[in-house]
């Protein structure tokens, strides 16, 4: 009985899998698009832009969404109307390469720094750990231990 149920479940999954894989992407929304595109006049992201041009771009996006377009298609339509600058990504020519190269170099430098510094920190903290007990807990003499016990007993009262 259980075996049959398992076979039925697997068969159902096998049938559903291709349908899920090729299912049309979900329809997008204005907030989903406007935080990824620019107001071409304001020079800010559309979701924080407050101008007549920003409102025009929002109306354009809503009209495209109403046509049933996906997010990628809406962005494509925006580029066709307003140019690639609407995406707010560097165009790749001249100085724009720096926008890609500089962050990559910074990340590489940070990784290099960590690779260089982490073993040093670990060595240093290892040395401190082994030295710590001798520094932190000096041995008590019998007289000092007795006095300590008496003090604790007095405070407990």
């Amino acid at each position, binding site marked *: 009985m259980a075996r049959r149920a398992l076979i039925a479940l697997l068969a159902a999954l096998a049938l559903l899998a291709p349908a899920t894989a090729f299912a049309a992407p979900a329809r997008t929304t204005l907030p989903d698009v406007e935080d990824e595109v620019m107001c071409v006049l304001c020079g800010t992201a559309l979701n924080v832009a407050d101008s007549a041009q920003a409102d*025009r771009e929002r109306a354009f996006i809503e009209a495209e969404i109403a046509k049933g377009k996906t997010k990628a298609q809406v962005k494509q339509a925006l580029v066709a*109307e307003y*140019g690639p*600058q609407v995406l707010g990504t560097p165009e790749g020519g001249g*100085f724009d390469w720096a926008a890609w190269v500089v962050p990559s170099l910074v990340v590489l430098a940070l990784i290099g720094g960590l690779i260089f510094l982490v073993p040093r920190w670990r060595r240093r903290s290892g040395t401190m750990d082994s030295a710590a007990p001798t520094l932190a807990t000096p041995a008590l003499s019998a007289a000092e231990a007795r006095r300590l016990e008496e003090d604790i007993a007095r405070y407990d009262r």
Partner: protein
Amino acid sequence: MKRNAVPLVAILAAAALIGLLVYGVASRGENRTLDDAVSKGQRPAAPDRPLPVLGGAGQRSLANYRGKPVVLNFWASWCTPCRQEAPLLESAQKRLAAKGGTVLGVTFRDASPDSQAFVRKFKLTYPSLRDVSGQLAKAYGTRALPETFVLDGQGRVTAINRGPVSKDFLDTALTQVGV
């Protein structure tokens, strides 16, 4: 030695970043090539590239108007001064058309439905192209709209007006190109 290397690398990295910043600022300066040439009395060749026609099919470029004077005007529906100068450009179009020339609009960062609504509103009869990539505007050093360039029949820039055109500017510039 190793201890001294870290601050040295940090200083070099900071210097490289500052150098990059300076280069970026310098390379993004205004393109005044055409203005400088025209102010010296020269007639530099007008930058050209094929662009899609607003509200029409196919592409067109300045080369299609070679042999005729052209008033090239960068505009957009969102540009307030463009509304002021639209009637002046339309009357210049009538004058140019009589001599075989034309005003040629170029829209910049404007959606075509908005541009077409602008054309209908101001009853513009001259053609406009769509500079979607902004590359033509860049070649003309356009940074703010409207901007107007008067070209002679050989496709050379004879007059430039960065800002809304006046009747005086158009009269003088059109006379210079024989209109």
